[in-house]
Structure formats: structure tokens, C-alpha cells
């Protein structure tokens, strides 16, 4: 018996020692990337990054750190978002190989992958042991923004999602609560449907304008195009008839959404039709609006997080820190608007070095640091980001903020992604522009649908149908 106990004890100690040793020996994806990349010491890799704040990540943080760890220099080519696709395609078509790694908006992936501009990444993921850490990217991004067909072309790297920001102090005002209850017969609460949104927004404007309006959104067409996509689907709309591939954005739902969007402008600040990202931000941070919908940085800046950084000096000082609540937009299915993934250019002459850099950037360890950079615009996209104690401690309401981002990552809707997506998006932008100019919603929706049909016919109905069906089958294409 004593012998058995001794053997068991020795076995247990040996097991513990082995598991400790293997744990100590197991490398993280970031460590593997650094170790392997040291073989390419002295080389330079070029990465395309969105110009402005986004690029401060590789310029100030990740680029210098990578060079320090591996000896590989990172050259950052800053390109305005509107020109990124063009630049990437031009580089690919010319065969110049000027770019090694790329920032890619997920809705561009079918076009870039089918053209051959993106390097398939499956072999690299396997070779450099990244499978496990890929699985801890939040499912919406991992399952929908990584592959074209069955091939990995990108590493999802940005949790862009629309969030509703509202003024807790206004919604909690007893006087306003009583008046709203008397008027509407229900409690004043953050709207969960667009009908409620309209009612609450109108009420708050009546009570508080011109100091504070019920709501404002960015209304410039490139932004509103995303909002239309979200709202159209949460109201039950489908972009196409899946069989005929005829556009159905001019359905009753489409016309209703357009009509309501224009009606809502009446309780928003004068000139809201021209609000862009910054104008809308300024209005909210200065206390001029009670509700707005935007990307995650609004929430951080409203809380004052990072706004003392010199590069964020253009952000208006928040007068509403501590008064901001976070919620999903009405309908509960926020648009995963734009966002970024990381890819390797198929014409790169340093593919391994480029891949290792994006694996390192995207890894658990490094991405956790990057999403917390106060000046950069990468938003939480991994399961661990949403529950990070370090992030939750950034400002008093950061826990609620992260919870809403995490919820959005579960219920979010993907941007429409087809062959030549930008042509379809351009039609939507024109449609919104005409809407603000006062054209009849039904007429502009019909014209937009006709233009979509014409684009589909030029591309090839069957070809586009296959791409659409693959997109529509994704979990984030339509509300589940």
C-alpha cells in the first residue's frame, strides 16, 4: 500500500512538473511570430493603413515595438479610406508589389480575393500555429469576416459596431419622466424600436430645444448608407430576391425607412443633413443632443478617455462625461459598419514577414494592448477584450460600454458584401443624397433598385447570385 502511495505521489509530482514545463514551453501566437520573424531581421515590410488616427497604431506603437523585437522595419503607407481599395487594386494590377500587408474592409474581400489581390492565409495560420488564437476572436467577426468561400484571406482586427449613446441624466430626469408618461402613457426609456425612437426624440426636442435636441446622427451619405443598411434589415427588409436577384430595396420597408429617416431630421438640430462624424460628435459631446448612434470611439471620448492626448486635441472636450449610457440601436441589430481586417498582398515579396507581423498584431496579447490605445481607433473584437479587467477600469462606466460592444458583436449585421460592392454602395449614397434634397422616397428607392438591377446584370446575374447567397447564408447577414 505504501509502495502504491509512493508511486502515486511520484506520478503526481511528475505530472505536475511536466504540465508546468509544457505550459512554460508553450508559446503564444505573438511569441511564435516574434521568434519566426527574427529570421527576417533587417528587412522592411510595407503596410497600407487608413490615414489619420488609425495609422498612429503602427506609427507610434506596434511598428516601433515590432522593429525592437524582430529587427524588421515597418513602413506605413497612410491612405484615405475612400482610396484604399483603389490603391490596393492598382498595386495588384500593376504587379508592383509595393505593399506587403494590407488593411482591408471586410465588404471588399470578395472583390479582392476573386481578383487575386489577397494571399490565402490558411497555410501560414497552420505553419505559425495561429489556429487556437483565431478561435477566440468574437464569433461574428471570426465567422463572417475572415474567409471567402473556405479560404482564409484576412484576420478580423476591428470590432466596428454601431452603438446608441444616450444621456442618462436626461432620461433619468423625474420631471421629464412624468411629462413623458403623461403624454405617451409609458415610462421614458431608451428606445428599443424606431417608432419609440421617433416618439422619444420628438418629445425631448419639444421640451429641451434649442439647448438640447432629442437626437442627431451623422447624415452625410457615406455614413447614412450604413445606417440605412442596418435599419432596412431590422425592419424586415431583404436586399435582393434570392432567386431572381432582383433588388428589393424599393419594397414597402425600404420606402418606410427612407420616409421615417427624413421625418426624424425635423426633431434633430438644424442642418443635421450635413452632419459628418465630427459634427455629430461635437453636438453630442457639447450636450446639444440627447441620443446618437455611432462607432465605439464616441463612447470612449464622451467619457474623456484619451482625449488629453495631443493627437486627439481636435476632439471637443466632453461636457457629458459620466452622464452617458450605452445601448444597442433600436431594433437590436447594430451594423458592423466598415471595420478592418488584416491581409497579406499576393504580390508581396516578403509574404512570411508580412504574415508574421499581422499575426503578431492580431494576437491575443498585442491586440489587447492595441484596442486600449487611447488615440487609435481599433475597437474590441476578441472575447477577452470585452471582459478585460484592465479595460473595464479605464473609466467608471467602461464595464457597461464593453458589455454593449460584446452584445453588438453577437447580434450585429454585416455590411452588404458582393462582387463590386462599391457600385451598390454608391447607389445607396446617391439615394440618401437625393433623400435629403427632398426627392420622393418611393421614386428614389425605385431608381436605386433599377440601378442595382442594372449593375447586377452587367456583372452577371448568376455570378452575383452565387456570391449573394453565400453572403446571405452568413449568421450576420440578416437578423436571426
Amino acid at each position, binding site marked *: 500500500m505504501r509502495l502504491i502511495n509512493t508511486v502515486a505521489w511520484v506520478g503526481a509530482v511528475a505530472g505536475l512538473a511536466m504540465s508546468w514545463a509544457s505550459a512554460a514551453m508553450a508559446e503564444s501566437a505573438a511569441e511564435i511570430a516574434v521568434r519566426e520573424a527574427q529570421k527576417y531581421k533587417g528587412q522592411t515590410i510595407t503596410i497600407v493603413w487608413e490615414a489619420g488616427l488609425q495609422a498612429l497604431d503602427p506609427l507610434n506603437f506596434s511598428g516601433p515595438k515590432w522593429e525592437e523585437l524582430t529587427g524588421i522595419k515597418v513602413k506605413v503607407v497612410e491612405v484615405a479610406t475612400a482610396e484604399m481599395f483603389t490603391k490596393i487594386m492598382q498595386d495588384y494590377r500593376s504587379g508592383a508589389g509595393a505593399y506587403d500587408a494590407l488593411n482591408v474592409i471586410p465588404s471588399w474581400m470578395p*472583390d479582392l480575393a476573386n481578383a487575386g489581390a489577397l494571399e490565402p492565409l490558411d497555410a501560414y495560420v497552420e505553419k505559425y500555429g495561429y489556429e487556437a488564437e483565431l478561435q477566440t476572436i468574437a464569433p461574428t467577426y471570426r465567422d463572417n469576416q475572415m474567409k471567402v468561400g473556405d479560404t482564409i484571406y484576412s484576420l478580423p482586427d476591428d470590432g466596428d459596431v454601431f452603438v446608441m449613446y444616450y444621456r442618462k441624466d436626461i432620461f433619468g430626469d423625474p420631471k421629464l419622466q412624468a411629462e413623458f408618461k403623461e403624454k405617451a402613457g409609458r415610462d421614458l426609456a431608451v428606445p428599443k424600436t424606431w417608432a419609440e425612437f421617433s416618439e422619444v426624440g420628438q418629445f425631448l426636442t419639444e421640451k429641451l430645444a434649442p439647448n438640447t435636441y432629442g437626437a442627431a446622427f451623422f447624415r452625410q451619405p457615406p455614413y447614412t448608407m450604413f445606417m440605412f443598411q442596418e435599419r432596412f434589415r431590422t425592419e424586415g427588409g431583404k436586399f435582393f430576391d434570392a432567386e431572381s436577384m432582383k433588388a428589393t430595396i424599393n419594397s414597402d420597408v425600404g420606402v418606410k425607412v427612407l420616409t421615417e429617416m427624413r421625418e426624424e431630421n425635423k426633431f434633430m438640430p438644424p442642418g443635421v*443633413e*450635413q452632419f459628418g462624424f465630427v459634427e455629430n460628435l461635437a453636438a453630442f459631446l457639447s450636450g446639444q443632443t440627447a441620443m446618437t448612434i455611432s462607432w465605439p470611439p464616441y463612447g470612449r471620448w464622451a467619457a474623456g478617455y484619451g482625449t488629453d492626448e495631443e493627437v486627439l486635441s481636435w476632439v471637443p472636450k466632453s461636457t457629458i462625461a459620466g452622464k452617458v449610457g450605452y445601448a444597442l440601436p433600436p431594433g437590436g441589430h447594430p451594423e458592423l459598419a466598415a471595420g478592418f481586417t488584416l491581409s497579406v498582398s499576393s504580390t508581396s515579396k516578403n509574404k512570411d514577414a508580412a504574415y508574421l507581423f499581422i499575426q503578431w498584431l492580431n494576437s491575443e496579447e498585442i491586440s489587447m494592448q492595441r484596442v486600449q490605445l487611447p488615440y487609435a481607433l481599433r475597437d474590441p473584437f476578441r472575447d477577452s477584450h470585452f471582459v478585460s479587467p484592465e479595460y473595464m477600469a479605464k473609466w467608471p462606466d467602461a464595464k457597461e460600454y464593453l458589455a454593449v460592444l460584446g452584445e453588438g458583436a453577437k447580434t450585429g449585421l454585416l455590411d452588404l458584401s458582393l462582387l*463590386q460592392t462599391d457600385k451598390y454602395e454608391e447607389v445607396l449614397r446617391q439615394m440618401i*443624397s437625393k433623400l*435629403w*434634397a*427632398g426627392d420622393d422616397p418611393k421614386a428614389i428607392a425605385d431608381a436605386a433598385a433599377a440601378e442595382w438591377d442594372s449593375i447586377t446584370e452587367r456583372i452577371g446575374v448568376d455570378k452575383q447570385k452565387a456570391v449573394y447567397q453565400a453572403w446571405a447564408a452568413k449568421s450576420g447577414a440578416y437578423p436571426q
Partner: protein
Amino acid sequence: MVGADDITTPAGVAPDRLFKYWLIVPAIFLLLLVGLFPLIYSLIVSFQNITMMEVDTSFAGFVNYAQLFKDARLWEALLHTGLITIIALPLELVLGLLMAQLFLERMPGRQIFVSLLVLPTVIAPIVAGATWRLMFDHRYGPINQIIGWLAGEPTTLLWNVNPNLVYPAIFICEVWQWTPFMFLILLAALSNVDKSLTEAAEIDGAGYWRTFFKIVLPSIWPVMAIAILIRGLDLARIFDVIWALTRGGPGTMTETISIYTYVQGFQQFETSYTAAIAFLVIAMLTIIVVWAIRRMGLAK
């Protein structure tokens, strides 16, 4: 011994006569390379089917040219371009002429005023457009502020969104920037009008308008015609100001042919179709310019 005069080419041409042609060969080659080659290459591309997704260089026939006639947005863009040209050009001409008349006489500080007036023309059009966009901004722009003061209440005129205001906004910017160009050229032309002729007409009892139409205008016409031609061609390819102000919006309401060509070529990557558009525009402009040159008597 063979003398220099005895050296001839096989064709019997003296080498010094050939030498001058050799000297201009590089220049001609360069001109063909940068001028003719892109033109011919574009023509070839217009008969192919090159898009963002496909590089199909096989002969596609007249598909792209046939598409031109079905493309309503293209013809609307041409219409907008024509509209801008026929309104902005006379405005700039008349205002430029009036200003030139005003500054024809000697006055204190004339040179300083002329220099200041010409400043808008040295600004890049895209910068002028961006500046005017800020001027028209409904929240921070001075234009709405001033209108608000005059109206006695805050005014929110959306110059880039309201269909009734977008064209006036474009004309204000365009006329502001290019009237000084007309002014400068016409001032130079007016300064060279023979004063003895106008004085003789005055002595003979001709009134101001008669003198202007019978003596001054014919004298300055060759210069004025050139100015009209230059500005007309500029307006036919107007891009920057409108791009900065409205991006062709609202919808496609202010989209000109240059903007549409840019969108097709560099945003939508319809390379072959864009080449066809370019040739349509070249053909139309050639016809108009040839007609205008004959009509204006510039060919003499």
C-alpha cells in the same frame, strides 16, 4: 582627299540639311510618346473590356460606345456641364469686362488693387472649392451668419444639400475665382486699344455704346475670343470646385462630365467604358472648338 561638300547621302541630300531633322527627332519622339501614344492606347482600350474584375483585352466591338447612348447619367452630366458653361462663362466675361473698364483709368493704388483682384486665380481650384465649402457651412460659415444678421434670425441654408442652392453656390465660387482671369486679359486688351480712334469717334459725336461696339470691341475681340475659348474649355472640364463643394450632389444633380468620368474610371474601375467616354468628350469638344474658332474668326 574628299571635301566636306562632296559628302552626300545615298539620296543625294547634303548632311547639314538632314542634321536639323535629327535635332528635332527627340522632341517629336517625346511628343508622340506623351501625346499620341496615350491617345491611341486609350482608343484601343475603349474597344476592349477592361474592368476592375477582368482584364479582357480581346476585341469587344462597339459595346462600350453603344453603352454611351443608353447611359442617362452620362447625358445628364453633359447637360450639367453645358449648363454651368453657358451661365458661368457670360457672367465671368461681363463682370471681367466691367472691372477692366473700371480699372482702365489711372487711379491711386491701381496696381495694388489689380494685384489683389487677381489673387483668387492663383489659388488651386480644389482649395478654392474647399474654402467655399467652409464659407457655406451652415454652422460655422460666415455666409449663413451674414444672411442671419440681415434676416434678423438664425438662418440654416444648406448650400450643399438644397437643390435650389447648389448651383448658385457653384456659380459664386466659380465666378469669384475666374472673373479676375477675364479681367486681367481684358484689361491688357483694353489698354492697347488705339486711343486716337476712340477720341476721333468722340469728336465725331459717337456715343459711349456706339464707340464701344464699333471701335473698342472689334479691337479687343481677338484677345477676348481667346479668353472665351480658354475659359470655355476650362468650364467644359470643370471638376475640382464642384468635387470639393458638392461631390456632384445632391444625388447626381451637379455631376459634370469630368466628375462622372472620374467616378467611372477611378472609383468604379470601368476602364474601357471610361476610355469610350473620353473619346466621346474629345469628339464633342473638337467639333465645338473647331466651330468656335471659325465662328470667332480665330482661324484667319
